[in-house]
C-alpha cells in the first residue's frame, strides 16, 4: 500500500469510553449563510448539527477502497466506516447515498446530501465552493503503467497517451505539471471513471494513467493486474470532507469527532482493516 506517508503517529489507544462529549458550540448558529441571496437560495433552511437526526453522505459508489459497492449492493469502504463511526458518536443516523459524481455540487446545494465524503481531494476551487473539513488522509497522484511498459519515469511520458479521470485531482495535477506540454497531442484523454481508463490501459489504447495512489494500488492488488505504480509521483495531496458552504457547525462536529477517533485509535483500526497497516488515516 501507500507508504509515502510521513508523521506516522503511534497508535496509542486511550479509549475514553464516552464517545461524544457533545461540547455543543451552540453559538455557531451559522449567520454566515445570510450572505447568499435568500431569494435564489430557497432550499437552504439547514438544520443545525445538534438538531440533525440523520447524516446523508453522498458518494460515487465506485471508488474502491474509499467508498464502493459490494456484491450485494451494500455500500462499504474506508469512508463509510469512518462516517458510520462519526455518526454513532454524534448520536445521529447514517445514510450513504450513491450519486452521479457530476451532480455532487447540486446535491449538496439543494440539501439532498449533507456531506460529500468519498476520498475527495482538497483543491483551491473546492475550498472556495464548499465548507471543507481538515484533511483526514494523504494521497499521492501516481502514474500507472503496464508491467511491460517502457515508461519508467515521469519524463518518459513524452509523446505517450496519458489519461486521467475528468474533474479529478489527478487531472489538475497532470495539467499543472511541466511534462503536460510534451505528452501526445499536448492533451490528456479524459475518462468518466477509473475503471474505464484502467481497462483501456490493459487494451493498449493508452500508455499511462495519472490517478490516486490509494485507488491504483487497491485496484491492482484486488484484480491481480499486470500493472505498476511508478516510483516517481506527481504532487502529494489530501482528502477532506465537504459540506455546503456555511455549514461550519457540521464540519466542526465532524472534525472534532475524527480527532477523538484519532486519539482513541479507531482510525488506526480502520486503516489496518482496509490497508493492512496502521497510520494510513491520520489528521
Amino acid at each position, binding site marked *: 500500500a501507500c507508504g509515502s506517508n510521513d508523521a506516522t503517529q503511534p497508535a496509542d489507544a486511550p479509549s475514553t469510553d464516552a464517545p461524544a462529549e457533545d461540547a455543543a458550540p451552540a453559538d455557531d448558529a451559522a449567520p454566515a449563510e445570510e450572505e447568499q441571496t435568500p431569494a435564489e437560495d*430557497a*432550499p437552504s433552511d439547514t438544520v443545525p448539527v445538534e438538531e440533525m437526526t440523520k447524516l446523508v453522505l453522498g458518494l460515487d459508489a465506485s471508488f*474502491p477502497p474509499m467508498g464502493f459497492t459490494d456484491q450485494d*449492493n451494500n455500500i462499504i469502504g474506508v469512508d463509510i466506516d469512518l462516517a458510520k463511526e462519526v455518526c454513532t458518536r454524534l448520536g445521529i443516523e447514517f445514510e450513504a447515498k450513491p450519486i452521479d459524481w457530476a451532480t455532487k455540487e447540486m446535491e449538496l446545494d439543494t440539501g439532498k446530501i449533507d456531506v460529500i465524503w468519498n476520498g475527495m481531494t482538497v483543491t483551491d476551487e473546492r475550498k472556495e465552493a464548499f465548507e471543507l473539513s481538515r484533511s483526514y488522509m494523504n494521497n499521492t497522484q501516481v502514474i500507472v503503467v503496464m508491467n511491460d511498459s517502457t515508461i519508467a519515469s515521469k519524463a518518459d511520458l513524452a509523446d505517450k497517451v496519458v489519461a486521467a479521470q475528468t474533474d479529478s485531482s489527478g487531472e489538475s495535477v497532470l495539467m499543472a505539471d511541466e511534462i503536460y506540454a510534451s505528452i501526445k497531442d499536448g492533451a490528456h484523454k479524459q475518462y468518466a471513471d477509473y475503471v474505464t481508463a484502467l481497462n483501456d490501459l490493459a487494451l493498449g489504447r493508452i500508455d499511462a494513467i495519472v490517478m490516486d495512489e490509494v485507488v491504483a494500488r487497491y485496484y491492482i492488488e484486488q484484480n491481480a493486474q499486470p500493472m505498476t505504480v511508478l516510483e516517481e509521483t506527481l504532487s502529494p495531496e489530501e482528502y477532506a470532507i465537504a459540506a455546503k458552504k456555511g455549514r461550519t457547525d457540521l464540519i466542526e462536529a465532524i472534525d472534532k469527532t475524527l480527532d477523538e477517533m484519532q486519539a482513541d485509535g479507531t482510525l488506526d483500526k480502520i486503516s489496518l482493516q482496509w490497508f493492512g497497516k496502521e497510520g494510513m488515516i491520520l489528521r
Partner: protein
Amino acid sequence: MNMSEILTTTKALLQGVEVVTILFVVVLIASIPLGFVLTLLSRCRIAPVRWVVNAYIYVVRGTPLMLQLFFIYFGLPYLPVVGKMLVLSGFSSALVGYTLNYAAYFAEIFRGGLLAVDKGQYEAAQVLGFSKAQTIVRIVMPQMIRVALPSVTNESITLVKDTALMYAVAVPEILHYAKVAVSRTANPMAFVVAFVIYLIMNTILQLVFNWLEKKLAY
C-alpha cells in the same frame, strides 16, 4: 468469471429491476392519459392554449431527458415562493420528469393517430346525436388507440431503456448496479448480465403489447 460470480452479479442487478418496473408502470399509466389530454389541447380552439401546449411538446422533445430531470430534482426548489414545496425525492422527481417527458411523446403519437380517424366518423357520430365528448370517448379514441399502439409499444421499449437515466437523480437502477459491479470486479460480465436483463424485460413487454394489439384489432 465463474458461474457463481455471475449469479451473484445477477442477484445484485435484479435489485435494480424493481425500481425500474415501478417507474415504468407508473409513468406509463400517468403519461398516456396526460399525453392524450395534451393532444386534445393542442387542437383546442383557444389559440394561446395551443401555443403553450405545442411549445411544451417542442421543448420537451428537443432536449435531453437527463437535463429535464436535473431541473426537476435540483432546479425546482429554487423557484420563488413555491420552491419550498417542490423538494422532491430522487424517485419522485424521476416519476414526475419521465411522466412529463413521455406525455409529450405520446401526445405526438396520438396526434398522428387522430389523423387516421376518418372525418366521416365524426360526421356519422354527429348525425347520430353524439356530443363532442361522446364522439371522442366512444368513437375516436378506440380507433385512434389501435392505430397508435405500435408507436406506443416503441415508446414503451425506449422507456425501459431510458430508466437508466434515473441515476442522474440518485436513484440506483440496473445499469448503475452493473457499473459498480464492473468497477469492483474489473470485469465487464456485469454489463452482459444487464444486457440480458434489458432484453428480457423488453421481450416481455413486446409480448404483452402484441397480445394487446391482437385484442384491439377489428
